[in-house]
């Protein structure tokens, strides 16, 4: 069973539809910590404000995810779902993330190298320095394009599995063991996105 966590932030239709298209037939859209603990895989989608992840703590889902990933359940965070894996975000300083990865997410700079930078970062951008051993990115060629829409971004670290350039480099894919996140929308990223989701389903 694949648990897709619903925390009332945006539209889950596209993610569920893409997983079904790839053959996942046992998907449960849920807010239940018990179901998260029982799941074979967990997906945390998300568009919107970091503050909406506060609901995860309020419903006991943060603790459930912490226990599930500790016993090895594969976890995929998408967009804000990736950001939540960090300690927090300047978008909502009062709301704590899972803290699985160090540091916090920050807003794109208004000016980069003397040039005004538009924000949000919207559109197709490339995955660079794709980690060869990444299980999530198996078969993904460096330079492949994926679809982004976001204003906050995660910092680079040793857990970065791919980076993307916009106002400097940021983490577009993070992966350590069974815990993974993508800043882009795999369900909207054509063949490359479907490949990433297929890799996740195959774990």
């Amino acid at each position, binding site marked *: 069973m694949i648990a897709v966590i619903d925390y009332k*932030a*945006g*539209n889950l*239709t*596209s993610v569920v*539809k*893409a997983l079904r*298209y790839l053959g996942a037939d046992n998907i449960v859209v849920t807010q239940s910590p018990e179901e998260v603990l029982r799941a074979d895989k967990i997906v945390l989608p998300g*568009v*919107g*404000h970091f503050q909406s992840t506060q609901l995860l703590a309020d419903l006991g889902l943060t603790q459930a995810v912490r226990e599930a990933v500790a016993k090895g359940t594969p976890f995929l965070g998408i967009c804000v779902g990736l950001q939540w894996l960090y300690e927090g975000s300047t978008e909502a300083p009062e709301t704590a993330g899972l803290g699985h990865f160090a540091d916090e997410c920050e807003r794109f700079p208004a000016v980069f190298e003397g040039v005004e930078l*538009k*924000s*949000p*970062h*919207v*559109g*197709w*951008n*490339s995955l660079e320095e794709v980690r060869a051993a990444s299980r999530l990115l198996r078969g993904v060629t460096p330079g492949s*394009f994926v*679809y982004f*829409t976001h204003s906050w971004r995660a910092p680079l670290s040793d857990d970065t599995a791919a980076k993307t*350039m*916009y106002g400097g480099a940021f983490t577009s894919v993070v992966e350590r063991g069974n815990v993974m996140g993508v800043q882009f929308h795999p*369900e*909207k*990223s*054509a*063949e490359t*996105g*479907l490949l990433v989701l297929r890799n996740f389903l195959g774990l």
Partner: protein
Amino acid sequence: MLTKRIIACLDVRGGRVVKGVQFVDIVDAGDPAELAIRHARGGADEIVLLDITATHEGRGTLLDTVKRAAAQLFVPFTVGGGIRSAEDAAAVFDAGADKVSINSSAIARPELIGEIGASFGAQAVIVAIDARRGKHGVSDAEVYVSGGRKPTGLRLVEWAREAEQRGAGEILLTSMDKDGMRDGFDCELTRAVSEAVQIPVIASGGAGSAADFADVFKAGRADAALAASIFHFGVTDSRALKAEVAAAGVAMRLPC
């Protein structure tokens, strides 16, 4: 590197894709769901489906079309036409759209922009603006509704800024002077809006050649450009177009 987007637009009436030259000679160009999927496979970066009649009776047909298209679309998918409330938007999102485009309903009640954004995120709300140059050109360009027939008295740049402040995720700017002419986008008009707002601006109206796209990305500072008529009647492959635009020095998603 962030690429510029080329968006294929399908104008739908009564469940079929239509394309007219300046709103006359409307010709049937096929099933919208099937065409949307073909465009995506052909390399379009994004698909927009506009219900140009948007009658109350036609809503069921439209939602069915959106559902059929979305089932096999894995690029961003926008639906516009006839969305007058957050409930209308929710129905379109439930059917599988990623973004909605609102135009006259946002002018009639600007709060609608924030209402849809509150539930589905700002990235899901495109405010479409139809504009014509004024007496003094771009500086007094005015916003129109009803397919470009009815002036609103709103200044283009002011309305674009207000839409952004109210939480629009993107602006879809159509030049009514250029629409259907196929002799190039209004780059000056596009640039005026692009420089006035932080959010992405999608240029529309006037696409005729690859050079037109390159111009609106460079001189017009558009983040994306939309075209309908140049893609129809069997032309659902945008790879050749994108290769030409890339050769003119614009970052494109290639291969795709």
